[in-house]
């Protein structure tokens, strides 16, 4: 993660506060690691940490475009359903249409992008608020997934397909490379390009961005399409890891994704946020889940802890911001 230009991204908009928020989060993460590591000696092992990276990839891939979307002041709640739809179409087109598997993968990625494009086009052209539009497609895409699958799962994929989800490359889980590349590219795009600048401008003042001649609608269309595409990619990784396809895949992903992004300091009101923050947020949620499970905390209690952490971090962030504005 040394690739991520921390000082520059932190300088954006609210220099020291954002730095403080992310630093604070990193410190909490560190403390959690030490405490959980002390409670269980299986937690702080390279094997376990890499395995957690494997498990977080599917949510992580979607959290990157979600960071873009939330920075513009939007939201995409349909990502979990797109994961389900893409997973089903991957299996269905391979098994029932007789597509070769590589073609089936491309097909499901394409469907993911199309699903995101539909969100984007209605949001920009018809001016439906993103929350409403993606709640509607959350239901619509999940319904399609269930209708197409008819509650039948698809399994028995060829061996090579399991590489991305289950094997290691240079000692690191294969899909983690995918996530790392996506993180670096997203961070550079957000921090260094005119496109990234456009996203911040939209989130901070959409009217002024429009009046300045920035391609506001095109940028929104791109990020919603990208979000759908990445949900499709996440579906492929997920199917490869669990070796089967079911229509309930990806249920609730939108909440994990948004929690990670917001925990990472991206403002739900738009204009503020970094990829770096999202990565820390992702790590925090995954390691808390795993660490608590290893120390014998039951599943329900884990969710309670994660909810509490989210509330606390929001409280600290807003009190920091209030202090900053009070000056």
């Amino acid at each position, binding site marked *: 993660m040394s690739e991520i230009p921390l000082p520059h991204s932190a300088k954006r908009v609210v*220099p020291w506060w954002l730095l403080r928020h992310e630093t604070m989060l990193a410190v909490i993460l560190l403390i959690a690691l030490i405490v959980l590591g002390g409670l269980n000696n299986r937690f702080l092992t390279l094997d376990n940490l890499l395995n957690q990276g494997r498990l977080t990839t599917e949510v992580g891939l979607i959290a990157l475009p979600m960071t873009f979307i939330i920075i513009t002041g939007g939201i995409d709640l349909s990502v979990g359903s797109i994961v389900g739809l893409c997973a089903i179409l991957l299996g269905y087109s391979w098994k029932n249409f007789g597509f070769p598997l590589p073609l089936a993968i491309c097909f499901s990625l394409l469907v993911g992008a199309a699903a995101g494009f539909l969100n984007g086009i209605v949001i920009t052209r018809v001016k439906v608020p993103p929350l409403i539009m993606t709640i509607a497609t959350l239901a619509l895409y999940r319904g399609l997934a269930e209708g197409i699958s008819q509650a039948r799962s698809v399994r028995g994929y060829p061996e090579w397909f399991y590489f991305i989800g289950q094997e290691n490359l240079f000692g690191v889980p294969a899909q983690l490379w995918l996530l790392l590349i996506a993180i670096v590219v997203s961070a550079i795009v957000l921090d*260094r390009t005119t496109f990234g600048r456009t996203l*911040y*401008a939209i989130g901070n*003042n959409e009217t*002024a961005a429009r009046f300045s*001649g920035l391609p506001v609608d095109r940028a929104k269309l791109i990020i919603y399409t990208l979000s759908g595409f990445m949900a499709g990619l996440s579906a492929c990784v997920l199917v490869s890891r669990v070796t089967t396809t079911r229509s309930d895949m990806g249920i609730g992903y939108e909440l994990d994704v948004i929690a990670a992004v917001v925990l990472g300091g991206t403002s739900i009101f738009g204009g*503020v946020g970094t990829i770096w923050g999202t990565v820390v947020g992702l790590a925090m949620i995954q390691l808390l889940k795993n660490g608590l499970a290893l120390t014998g905390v039951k599943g329900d209690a884990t969710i309670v802890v994660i909810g509490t952490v989210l509330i606390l971090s929001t409280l600290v962030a807003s009190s920091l911001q209030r202090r900053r504005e009070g000056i």
Partner: protein
Amino acid sequence: MTASAHYAPPTTPLLSVRAIEKSFPGVRALSGVSFDAARGEVHALLGENGAGKSTLIKIVSGVFPPDRGEVLVGGKAVDLARPDDARRAGIATIYQELLLFPELTVAENIFMGHAPRAGLRRIDWRAMREKTNALLASLEIHDLEAERVVGTLSVGNRQRVEILRALSQDARILIMDEPTAALTEYDVTRLFDIVRKLKARGVAVIYISHRLDEIFAIADRVTVLRDGAHVATKRVADTDAAELVQLMVGRRIESLFPKITVPIGKPVLEVKDLERRPLTRSISLTVRAGEIVGLAGLVGSGRSELAQTIFGVTPADGGEIRIAGQKVDIRSPAQARSLGLAYVPEDRGTQGLVRPMTVRENFSLAALGKVAFGGFIDRGAERKLAGDGVKRFAVKASSLEQTAGKLSGGNQQKIVLGKWLANGPKLLILDEPTRGIDVGAKAEIHRLMGELAAQGLAILMISSELPEVLGMSDRILVMREGRIVAEFSHEEATQESIGAAMMGSHENAEKAA
């Protein structure tokens, strides 16, 4: 006006406003304004946009308290800390935007908050209906039923419901803020009938309007405000339109405006029969290189809408735009920018500046193409662009990384102007370029406009400040109700002639022309 026949100044006015002063941060809105209104009198308040009329009525209706001065009702000082205090004192205000509940009936709206009660504090619906019918009958309104849902009524009828609501609370003083702004001619006549009935009942009406003809039709006296100060109170019978316009706009023109006479070049912008209803109607105009064209008009006359139609924010429905002789069809601000247009919008905070972003980021916002290569922003080039801008426009900022929203209004405006000039435009549209900024920054922006024109830039300037329009423009166009209604050269324009054209008092415009 026959109504003035039974008007006689009484000894104790019903409403008396004495030496009101009010300041907002950076602005002195009212400085020692006094006026009074007697029972059965219609007293008009007249003044340009920003003269202080709205502030004055908000003080009288208890929206906010004055810094100094007092309001007397029936000779007794009243403390108007909240709108409810004003209501108790018998003061009711009808604002331009009507405050009704569209889903409720006429009767429910009228008695909202003070419905007649039966036992156990239940609402007495029958009494409410009867009282509503009595009110309707008392003003001889026959086309409104107590049970109608207000959302289905015409604007004129909704306004009548507001008036009835005021009467149901026994209002003795009725303030009407531009009541005819959205009315049809027929509704205006009916409104005047009602106002005359109220007069006959002894209600004092404070009537705010831009329209001079209405003041002569309905008012007994008129008080003119200018720049927050009381200019004159006249009996309508003793004055005429020309005098009122003179009183309203009659400022001295400070010789602050360094309009340099420069050779005027070829047309840069030619607009022909441009249409985008309702506020851009068959507009034709030309702006040439080196020329500053002033666009005057009241707020709501369609000036900003015209600018935004030319700039592609709200693309035109019809007509023709030529840039440097080339016919173009502008569909978006991005396209307008690439054609060499720049637009410094009216509302700096919401349309011009991205306040939470830094000075550097704001300077490069409209010129990202200039500092980016293959989509990647060259931070060195960006810093240089912003640094040059800060120097050229003498922006007072602690650093390029300072949040732009924390700068003063003048410095913010310089950044918005600077970000557009970074593109090297051919035509600059300025919408209220000096509104709300201090005198020093104002002079600098005027100096800059002169320089830019001298370099051959074509400038279209929208301004509500007549001295600015008169001082800076080579030519002046006047808009009213979406149309260009008059054109003056720099030499022939006077405050009175422009003011008359803005107001639409025709006989006066002819006199001036």
